[in-house]
């Protein structure tokens, strides 16, 4: 890997407009994620957080605006091309493959890998992080409990060892303790130099890991602040996110 400056912008969204069919859900979103940074995306229900993430990872094609990865425009690229660049997206609602075993689910996370050895190494890490998954390696993913599926989804997203990890509500359905562990994992991989863009409903948890946060409302960025100052902005917190 070439040496990268701490402040180098990895991902940048510039006035991105996107939506579903006729419905416009994002009215010009601009945000950026820098190298080694953890950024949180906050906002009320239906604000467009998930839509933003889907647009970045290529699940939705933006109708206007630019998305840049290390300066290169990537708007409109298919998801697999974006993954190849090093952006991995752990989607909302888990999306595990119900009729495959836990192990197969995990392994498929490393679909783009060609080395079996490397795949095994990463799988080992995943199982180490989430011992419950190792216990259930042969169980069909569809029969896992909600929280177990969530762990599986996160483990799978980590398999590609991305440069930018996008997490959509990673703590959803996790027990408080498990959620803490997941946030520890987030910190840990961030410490290894991975940038993270996270949507999280638990504002405190989010602001504890993130250095910066964007607040979305009805498809627009209404605030961008570093975590410390956002924590100290009770008005904004109260108005949109809850204390």
């Amino acid at each position, binding site marked *: 890997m070439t040496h990268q400056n701490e402040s180098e912008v990895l991902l940048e969204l510039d006035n991105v407009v996107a939506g579903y069919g006729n419905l416009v859900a994002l009215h010009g979103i601009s945000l950026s994620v820098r190298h080694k940074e953890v950024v949180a995306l906050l906002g009320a229900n239906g604000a467009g957080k998930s839509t933003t993430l889907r647009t970045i990872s290529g*699940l939705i094609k933006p109708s206007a605006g630019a998305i840049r990865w290390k300066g290169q425009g990537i708007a409109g690229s298919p*998801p697999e091309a974006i993954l*190849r660049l090093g952006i991995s*997206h752990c*989607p909302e609602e888990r999306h595990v493959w119900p009729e*495959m075993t836990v192990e*197969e689910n995990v392994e*498929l996370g490393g679909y783009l890998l060609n080395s079996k050895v490397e795949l095994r190494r990463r799988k080992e890490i995943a199982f180490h992080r989430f011992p419950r998954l190792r216990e259930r390696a042969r169980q069909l993913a569809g029969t896992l409990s909600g929280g177990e599926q969530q762990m599986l989804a996160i483990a799978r997203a980590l398999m590609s060892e991305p440069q930018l990890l996008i997490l959509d509500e990673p703590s959803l359905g996790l027990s408080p303790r498990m959620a803490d562990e997941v946030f520890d994992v987030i910190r840990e991989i961030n410490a290894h130099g991975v940038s993270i863009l996270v949507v999280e409903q638990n504002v405190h948890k989010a602001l504890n890991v993130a250095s910066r946060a964007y607040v979305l409302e009805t498809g627009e960025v209404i605030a961008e602040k570093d975590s410390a100052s956002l924590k100290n902005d009770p008005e904004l917190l109260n108005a949109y996110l809850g204390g």
Partner: protein
Amino acid sequence: MFDLFLQFVLNGLVNGTFYALSALGLTLIFGLMRLVNFAHGEFYMMGGILGWVVTSQLGLDFFSGLVVVVAVMAAFGWLLDRFIIVRVRDKGPEPGILLTIGLAIFLTNTALLLVGTAPHKVVAPVSNAPLLLGPVIITKVRIFAVAVSILAIVGARLLIQKTKLGRAMRATFQDATAASLVGINTASIYASTFALGSALAATSGMLLGSIYVAQASIGGLISLKAFVVVILGGMGNFAGAILGGLILGVAEALWGGYVQTGTVDMVGFALVILILFFRPYGLFSIRAERA
């Protein structure tokens, strides 16, 4: 009496293998991709007709002919998926049903226009001289066809269960969003599956066309049997498809042998009803749905 029984069972097994083979393409497209493909029989028909064209008309031998037919049909399936089936992909099952019914009508009747209604002969790969195996009779070409069927079925199963491509296919059909997020090019997986399904259908059409005849209007019948086989075995399950085919073949042979030949076609449907009565998801199927 026992010799007769053996012969019936053998007939049934051979036929059952053929059923499994002719359902193979459908196991992919319907069983795995969950597209209720009414044009399956027409793909089979195209295999037979193209087989006739390349062997009887263009004078190729069976094997080179098969290569050509497989290539053509794979390309056909691929294009069909990329340009037509995609457009109904996420719109529920009905548009797919209607689309493939329309396609089936179109293909059958266009084939009728182009090559006429007459049955056609596909040049056989080996002779169809009878062979005596103890008390029972079989022909060389049938043995050959059974071998090819087994190869194709086993190959398809290995492909789906053991290879990365197979895994990518299953992932795509179970959850396409997740699949594209781990880097699977889902559009090309859909298209390749469809291409593979069409090519398999055509292979069986050509192979069986060399044993029976190739004919433009055979499609509907083939589709019916293939649906029965796929359902009997459990959706998208290759081992199941083989067993479904064999069960159907043997049951039909025994029914035809000891009860009544005019009603053999009823056997398959009666079996489907019976088996689903006791096992609502086919003989072999995994289900991971939970409330």
